[in-house]
């Protein structure tokens, strides 16, 4: 894909949302208060939803807003406020000097490795092994058609198993979280 293929308007907003996501993620790991951290993470997720829409994955963008920003983060905020952990100035949970340096070194090494891997070529045999729907537009079913076709044909077993997983998670969360008398 060439860069000159995209109009300036598109590129500008792509970089804008990317930079906002990056800045919000940095603010998220450096906030002391869990509530502030959770709200910055919500911001990251909204920006990622915008990027998904720009990458022609509109359905995933909607799911990102509904499930991630809407449901999962509300659960996080609910737990933070339920536990009532006191004022953030009194209890900083960021580790000391040495773990921070070690984390920085690990982070740099990981970033370099992932950047190198991102430039590597996808092996051809893997490419041909994945059943892949055609993402071209203008087909019956619209933008969600190819995803639905794959999800309900090739991956239908995993689809059904994920419903079992969710049921197990509901039961497990209730059993673990209830008060023992």
């Amino acid at each position, binding site marked *: 894909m060439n860069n000159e293929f995209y109009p300036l308007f598109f590129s500008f907003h792509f970089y804008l949302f990317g930079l906002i996501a990056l800045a919000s993620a940095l603010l*998220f*790991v450096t906030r002391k208060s869990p509530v502030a951290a959770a709200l910055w993470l919500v911001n*990251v997720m909204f920006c990622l939803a915008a990027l998904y829409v720009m990458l022609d994955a509109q359905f995933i963008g909607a799911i990102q807003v509904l499930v991630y920003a809407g449901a999962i983060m509300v659960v996080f905020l609910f737990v933070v406020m339920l536990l009532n952990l006191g004022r953030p100035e009194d*209890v900083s949970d960021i580790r000391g000097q040495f*773990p921070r340096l070690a984390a*920085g070194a*690990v982070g740099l090494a990981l970033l370099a490795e*992932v950047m190198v891997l991102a430039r590597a070529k996808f092996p051809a045999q893997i490419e041909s092994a994945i059943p892949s729907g055609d993402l071209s537009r203008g087909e019956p079913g619209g933008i969600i058609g190819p*995803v639905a076709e794959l999800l309900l044909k090739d*991956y239908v077993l995993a689809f059904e198993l994920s419903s079992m997983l969710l049921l197990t998670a509901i039961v497990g969360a209730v059993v673990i979280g209830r008060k023992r008398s």
Partner: protein
Amino acid sequence: MVAESLALSAALFTIGVIGVLTRRNAIILFMCVELMLNAVNLSFVALSTLYGAAGQVFVLFVITVAAAEAAVGLAIVIAIFRHRQSVNLDDINLLKG
């Protein structure tokens, strides 16, 4: 745009790892894991523009598993908080020899 997305995904994943290594609050650790899952989702979606819709299907499964993980994990955090009155990981050392 795919290369930029992969670079952003790598950066977000690294920020998540640094968060896991430097924080002690169990809830914030969970949120860092969610950030890492989101970074991987971004790679999946970016590569799905080149290799077909299978990447988007995987993203749906990742979101499902993340929801289940958040529910069970936060229930465990609440159960631990009832016992120890703390979510600081340094206080949770019952299995330490």
